[in-house]
């Protein structure tokens, strides 16, 4: 059962955003998440990966199977070494954007997953999202 899945996608251009969300969906599907959760996760990864390309130009997306005997869990870490988010609280407000977007990216991603954690300082931003459900 300890079949640890780990997929690492390097984010360097907008094609990589498509690859990263596809990887997230595929791992979620293999672990037994339903179509709704697969889509939620893929959409959340898309938002986070796009932020990396837009603000930091490059980064990585790491999709990991964190399941244990009781729960199936998937964790996604999206990380970059860009300028960082100076005001995380504002960045998490729906409708706030410094990049000309809708301001729905980060708060939207948060609404789609079960766990959402963000840490940022100049030179390093890491967003961790996770989804889990009981094993049946």
């Amino acid at each position, binding site marked *: 059962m300890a079949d640890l899945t780990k997929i690492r996608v390097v984010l360097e251009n907008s*094609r990589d955003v498509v690859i990263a969300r596809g990887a997230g969906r595929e791992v979620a599907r293999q672990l037994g998440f339903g179509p709704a959760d697969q*889509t939620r996760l893929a959409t959340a990864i898309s938002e986070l990966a796009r932020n990396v390309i837009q603000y930091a130009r490059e980064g990585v997306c790491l999709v990991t199977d964190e399941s244990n005997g009781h729960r199936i869990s998937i964790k996604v870490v999206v990380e970059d070494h860009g300028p960082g988010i100076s005001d995380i609280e504002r960045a998490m407000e729906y409708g706030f954007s410094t990049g000309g977007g809708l301001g729905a990216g980060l708060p939207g991603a948060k609404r*789609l997953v079960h766990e959402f954690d963000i840490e940022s300082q100049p030179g390093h931003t890491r967003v961790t999202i996770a989804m889990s459900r009981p094993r049946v």
Partner: protein
Amino acid sequence: MIIPILRLKDVLLTSIQVDLTDQEALDFQADVLRMVSETEAGGIVIDITALDVVDSFMARVLNDTARIVRILGAEVVLSGMQPMVALALIEMGRELVGVETALNLDQGLERLQRLIQERTSGHGRPD
């Protein structure tokens, strides 16, 4: 990646069959606007049955496209959005969906014809 836009009598028809990058989505938007303007079509149905992710960027591109097409004097209907895609969009924020929609291409065409009729008979919806 070029997404074909077909002309069918007085309307246009297009179907996004692949996962688009941001740049491809913007190119598609430009193509739609150019075609609407060049062909003087009454409207366009954009079928997104094959899209399994519509994130906030894609949602904005689709919304903007619809808004601009309306300003040009034509109508837009988005057809075939997958239920899970609609679900994720609503969960992210309702404001992301601001386009006329239809269940499938068939109903999309019907709806488009009705919208065009309303516009030409002067009973269009106020924006």
